[in-house]
């Protein structure tokens, strides 16, 4: 799906805007990286796209998904789009799964929301999608509670939950930051493969330009709620125009 963001600003209360005049275009099947330090407004931007900011957030500008304007839609309309047309993978696999529910049921519920009366088909879908994200023991995993799984396993479950309805756009908010390096590489590969297989467009957020470069070829750099530079990642690496981008590239080289 194509995504067009124009002049997006978000402010909380009377504080200075957390996101200011952000704009970018994402073509069907394209992947865009969003790079920036902690507090630069990456998560606020992605939540604004999903319509998931708290009510007291003032959001202005335009977000259009395949030509449909999302800002101003009510919760009911947005709930139909979320999961089905666009979904999201969060940073903290430890907290992004409901501790009171078996993970299989959580994925099944996500599927049923958009396929009511699917019954046994939902259970089948759960195992299929768990297979796809690399579990060889899908049935056992689906019967586990989140605390019985490792961080990498949980992040794969979250990925399964995000793709179970085959959305055209997936937003990844630092999906590997909480994982150790080896698991991180594994999950990144899995994300890359999943995106290739489904042809979904993706917004991939990270503070680490090296991580972004493993999934995307193009990226925007955010700082203080604004986009300060954008272009092909190779270009950002070799000829960073903004001093901040240069600092990010150096930081990545050290990591």
């Amino acid at each position, binding site marked *: 799906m194509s995504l067009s963001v124009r002049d997006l600003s978000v402010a909380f209360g009377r504080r200075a805007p957390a996101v200011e005049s952000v704009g970018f275009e994402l073509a069907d099947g394209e992947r865009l990286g969003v790079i920036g330090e902690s507090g630069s407004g990456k998560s606020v931007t992605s*939540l604004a796209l*999903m319509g*998931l900011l*708290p*009510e*007291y957030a003032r959001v202005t500008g335009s977000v259009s998904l395949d030509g449909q304007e999302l800002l101003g839609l009510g*919760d*009911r309309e947005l*709930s*139909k*789009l*979320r*999961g*089905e047309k666009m*979904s*999201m993978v*969060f*940073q*903290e696999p430890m*907290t*992004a*799964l*409901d*501790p*009171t*529910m078996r993970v299989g049921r*959580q994925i099944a*519920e*996500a599927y049923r*929301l*958009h396929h009511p009366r699917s019954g046994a088909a939902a259970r089948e879908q759960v195992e299929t999608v768990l297979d796809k994200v690399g579990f060889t023991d899908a049935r056992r995993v689906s019967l586990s509670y989140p605390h019985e799984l490792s961080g990498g396993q949980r992040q794969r479950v*979250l990925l399964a*939950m*995000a793709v179970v*309805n085959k959305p055209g756009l997936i937003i990844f908010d630092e999906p590997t930051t909480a994982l150790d390096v080896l698991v991180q590489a594994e999950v990144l590969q899995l994300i890359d493969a999943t995106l290739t297989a489904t042809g979904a467009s993706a917004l991939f957020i990270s503070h680490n330009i090296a991580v972004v470069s493993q999934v995307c070829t193009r990226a925007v750099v955010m700082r203080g709620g604004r986009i300060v530079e954008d272009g092909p990642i190779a270009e950002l690496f070799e000829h960073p125009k903004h001093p901040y981008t240069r600092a990010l590239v150096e930081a990545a080289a050290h990591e």
Partner: protein
Amino acid sequence: MRRFQLWAGTALVGLVVLAALLSLVWTPYDPVQVVPADRLLGPSLAHPLGTDGFGIDILSRLLVGARSALLVGVVSVGLAAVVGVPLGVLAGMRGGWVSELVMRISDIVFAFPALLLAILLAAVYGGSTATAMVAIGISTIPAFARTSRAGTLEVMAEDYVLAARASGTSAPTTAIRHVLPNIVQFIGVQASVGFATAVLAEAALSYLGLGTPRAVPTWGGMLRDSQDTLFTAPLQALWPGLAIACAVLGFNLLGDGLRDALDPRLREAK
């Protein structure tokens, strides 16, 4: 220590429940039949706890009293939870003016003495177990609303709520599927504390004649009746007092024990 609270609470509450159940099928004597010849007997084999000023076996009245204590507890706590929990969850999820409104109304109801409410209700509808339950129930609503709101705020800050919303779960479904199951331990604790308060309040209202009618055995009513002969037969006041203390302590211990047993952080630490 944690274990002890849970067990002691369960034992005491279990005792009250057993007494209530037993009274349904068996009591040593008729709990309402006046026997003038047997007035104010001390404890004996025939009457283990003695008899009251009407010659009625105290043990029998105590057993039947457990019923009304539990009934009032269950109904008033149930009423308070059914109204208070949804309001608290709504306030916690919506925030803003909805939250303000719910919390201010809560404050007002909380500040309004339950006793005054009971007197008002008794004045309009006549004092009965029902008016006592409604008065106690209404005055317990704020406690449930506040606890649920606090719990909801905590849960709403968790990523799994966002993740569920990002999958297309609507706000009302999120409340039922993800918020309620995760605040149920707070509600459970509040319920057991509310139970203790209700047992005490029912005793107080019966004592004042604003609750259950005099003929029906209640612990509060027994306390009131014991007043006339307090100096000649002090034990008469002791038994219902002990029963009330036992139930209140039991529910409080159970509440504390439950909170500790259900707190995931404490559970993980084990």
